[in-house]
């Protein structure tokens, strides 16, 4: 499943030039498709106009996991097969909590990972396009889709803003 769209990339040398360019391009109402940076940049996460719902989803995974584990423990220990351990009540709630915490963390992690992969269309045998290998190292990349922008204008803007490379791909 190859991405066949034509793209333009502005490559920057650091966080500050990238953020500066981002603000300028946003003022000019240039559509930016994506960003590739070595580490998350909060300014861009907050202002690029797309909200991630992954956090909300994870929260509900956690809630349902916690309730589910507690319900399961309650069912096994109280309803289905009550045993007497040293005179403790069958519903030994405090001793359920540790395993609930552990299993909640486990469920949230795994389910969030799967949700993220599904939304990002990352599953086995997918050949994802790597736009710029430097983005995992020391380069900060803004990605544009060519059919959404005025190519000449964006290129000259990027040049003014100090992009070290401008690549068409």
């Amino acid at each position, binding site marked *: 499943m190859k991405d066949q769209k034509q793209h333009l990339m502005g490559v920057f040398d650091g966080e500050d030039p990238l953020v500066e360019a981002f603000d300028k391009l946003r003022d000019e109402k240039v559509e930016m498709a994506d960003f590739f940076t070595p580490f998350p940049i*909060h*300014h861009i996460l907050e202002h690029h106009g797309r909200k991630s719902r992954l956090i909300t989803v994870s*929260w509900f995974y956690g809630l349902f996991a916690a309730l589910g584990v507690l319900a399961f423990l309650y069912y096994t220990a109280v309803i289905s097969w009550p045993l007497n351990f*040293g*005179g*403790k009540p069958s519903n030994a709630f*405090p*001793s359920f909590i540790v395993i609930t915490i552990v299993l909640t963390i486990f469920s949230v992690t795994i389910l969030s990972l799967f949700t993220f992969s599904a939304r990002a269309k990352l599953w086995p045998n997918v050949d994802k396009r790597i736009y710029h290998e430097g983005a995992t190292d020391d380069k900060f990349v803004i990605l544009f889709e060519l059919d959404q922008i005025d190519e000449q204008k964006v290129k000259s803007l990027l040049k003014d803003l100090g992009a070290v490379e401008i690549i068409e791909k």
Partner: protein
Amino acid sequence: MEERLKLSPLYYIGTFILIAVGVAAFIMGFINDPTRAWANFLLNNVYFVSLAVGAVLFLALQRVTQSGWSAGFIRVPEAMGMYLPVAAVLFLVMVFGVHSLYHWSHSEAVAHDPILQHKQPFLNVPFWFGRMLIFFALWILLATMLRRYSLREDEEGGLVIFKKAAHVAKIFIFVILITFSLAGFDWIMSIDPHWYSALFAFKNFVSAFYHAAAIITFIVLLLNQFGYFPFLTRSHMHDFSSYIFMLCIIWGYFWFAEFMLIWYGNIPEETVYFVTRMQTEEWRVFFFANVIINWFIPFMIMMPAPSRRSKLTLKIIVPVLLVGLFLDLYLQIFPGVVGKQVLGFNEIGGFLGFAGLFMLVVGYFLTKANLYPKQHPYMEECLEHHV
């Protein structure tokens, strides 16, 4: 960045009124019911020493980790640490109340009690008192050194003092971990001398750090509201509340760890502590309110990142936590000393008095020095801080 805090006379008058209320409450208490009054005295003493010690620990951590984001705010914990000498004097007064507070201090009780006899080499009044002196001497020495270095840094600049302060901070962290744990055993856990819990001290240590971090944030926010700390941004807020949020989780963790091990072990001499607090009509409400206020409410409210960055949320959370620390200590001290649930003018008035004194001392020391450490090597980073 030269700016001094100016406190209006109204502030000082307010603190003096609070102190007067406290004095009235204690005089009434000592006349009517000395045991209860001493319990209050101990509670408030431990309360505000926890805040002061927690604040210096916060400061020491910033020094050791050489944090940039907090560089502009360190005058606040420094001023809070200056409450320690005042606290030392108030703790010395407690020598008159030892017999009201501690069962083990009565020699006739010890004579008929093999457990207390066994503990006597450690739990006896002179040694108890001596330990208290050593603790306060160490705390005051190190807290004052940290503040002195910081004030000298303002004039001299450079990196020499910065490194020295980081070194003192390392010593302080080691010292406080040991001494504050022992202090918790001495002052609170020995109220129930037959009961013991290894996690007790560390739980109180975390509690002190937790609530002190909340108060530091609150003072910074209040000053910000009156126009100080103009450089305070949402990024600083995020870091402050990360401290509170992280410590909230640790507090809940230790509270639960202590409770669950004792509940699960089910050994009578250990469970008696929780049976009194959890299963009697008198204390049950306080027991569960303690967890809800100190862990559940802050945990739930501060979970979403936007609320961690909002000043409003923190202004709501911190007063809740102020009540939380009181409740936590109330539940540790009152069942053992007073034996019945009492909550009236003595408790509230006494607390207000101590709060007034704390405000007076912290406010005074905040006005004494430049509000921002202008020559701190990381000051620039603090001003530009963003996440």
